[in-house]
């Protein structure tokens, strides 16, 4: 796994890692989904395309994750595999593979209200990109 859950007072977060910003973004998204349900039970039945715009890498990550929160909360879409198609010049575009959340099959975890800027970090050290995001629960 290229992400781990962060223990935050009252809420929950994710630390994600990748060899590129794209990998770190994909890991952060998968990590976020893992807080919502057990990903082992999620199948790749459909795909959605999402995009977000912001003028910083941090803004892009928060904007991107909030798009996924929106798709889950409005349409019940839960992803398990995330492909970042483009990241740069103020834009992120991604394809997410997953299915519709089904309460009879998917274990309910945390209800995420939003990805926040609180304690937000994206760091590049020794060729590895580390991202930390905290979610409002």
């Amino acid at each position, binding site marked *: 796994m290229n992400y781990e859950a962060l223990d935050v007072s009252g809420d929950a977060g994710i630390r994600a890692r990748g060899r590129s910003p794209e990998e770190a973004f994909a890991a952060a998204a998968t990590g976020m989904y893992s807080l919502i349900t057990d990903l082992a039970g999620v199948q790749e039945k459909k795909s959605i395309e999402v995009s977000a715009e912001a003028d910083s890498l941090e803004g892009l990550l928060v904007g991107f994750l909030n798009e996924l929160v929106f798709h889950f*909360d409005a349409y019940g879409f839960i992803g398990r595999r995330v492909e970042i198609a483009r990241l740069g010049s103020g834009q992120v575009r991604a394809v997410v593979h997953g299915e519709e959340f089904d309460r009879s099959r998917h274990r309910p975890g945390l209800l995420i209200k939003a990805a926040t800027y609180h304690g937000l970090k994206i760091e590049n050290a020794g060729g590895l990109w580390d991202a930390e995001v905290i979610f409002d629960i």
Partner: protein
Amino acid sequence: MAVRTVKRIDEYRIELPQTYVPGMRVKGIIYLDEALERGLEEKAMIQVANVAMLPGIVGASLAMPDIHMGYGFAIGGVAAFSMEDGIISPGGVGYDINCGVRLLKSRLTRQAVAPALRRLLDILFTEIPSGVGSKGKLRLGRQELEKVMTGGALWAAGEGMGSARDLERIESGGRMEGADPSLVSVKAHERGSAQIGSLGSGNHFLEIQYVDEIYDEEGARRLGLHRDQVTVMIHTGSRGFGHQVCTDYLEVMERAIRKYGIELPDRELACAPVNSPEAQDYLRAMRAAANYAWANRQAIMHWTRQAFMKTMGMGPEDLGMEMVYDVAHNIAKIEEHVVNGKKVKLAVHRKGATRAFAPGHPELPEAYRQTGQPVLVPGDMGRASFVLLGTRRAMDETWGSTCHGAGRVLSRHEAIRRARGRSIYRELEDMGIIVISAGRETLAEEMSEAYKDISNVVDVVHGAGISKKVARLRPMGVVKG
């Protein structure tokens, strides 16, 4: 240089002097006794100090005894800003706009409800969806949703969910003027279309309780509360609709801070001058979300009444399930207060704090004009909840505000770790409390140990005089998200 010394003012108050963090425009005051001060997080204190740095803050940056670290603003924070040079900040309201608490009383005794409790909870759990991925019973199109945004609880009552009598016992009458649906995004519409009448998750709940202690006989009599009486408490907010409004406007504020050259110690404090189009647009969208929350609690209350009628085999008259009150504890409002002997309008932000207006306040309904505003403070599911009344002193010191709940002490992860190998469900059952929860982890995260003891929190606001204890409610049955 920062001088991190805290001054104890009296038994129930500490002060963060302006030297606590350089740049503070006013001091910070936190309502705490020594015992609660021992558990105070330094990060939460810094957040109180950071809020004191915001332009146009009036009086002091305040926090209630249930304070804990939030995003930008601490949970439990209250801050008022000048209408000339102050700001409006979505972070001072929070993601769950108009998260709040509603209390219903009844003519039923604890003994009468006990045998039917499990069946009652089963019906409530089915009728009022909760937990991750749950949807409400209603599907609202755009036009209908716009009526919710402008009508609030009045919309729900118009749909047959409740009466005019309910509305007068809701803060702001269950409907804030000045909501503008055109300032709410399509995304918020989409998230909100299927969530009216749903509880959500996390610390939200619906609880069947009984009155187990009265502290103020006269106050309780006026509120219609007496020992062993069954009450129902509903704690939820504007669901995904409000979360999306907050997310959308945090982005707007990000741009606004650059446009207006506002320097901030923390990005989550993003804000705009109170008279700017950005701030005014946010307020109009926030009011739409606040109205959504009141419609939501009204719908949930309606289905709760129906569940009681069905289970108890009684009509509305015999059940007597009347509103005590409904409070918002995440909200920003333009209110009139007295500053240096003069009446002025202020932009009051309450984030995890409850309005607690004093007797005689013109915004209170006739029934509570003499008692002061009822304040509803939920505790954790194993301990108790409290009913208090607003006081004159709250008007003088806290812009008519008080605490909103227990405040977490354990992280979710730590709570789950400590619950491992235990059955929280069984432990509560042994205490005579039945819980139904959509998720097992929620149960562990929300266990009593994860929270401060609500009694200690309430004793501080009572001792400090910013509200007055009236009654204690004990849980009998709980529906958790």
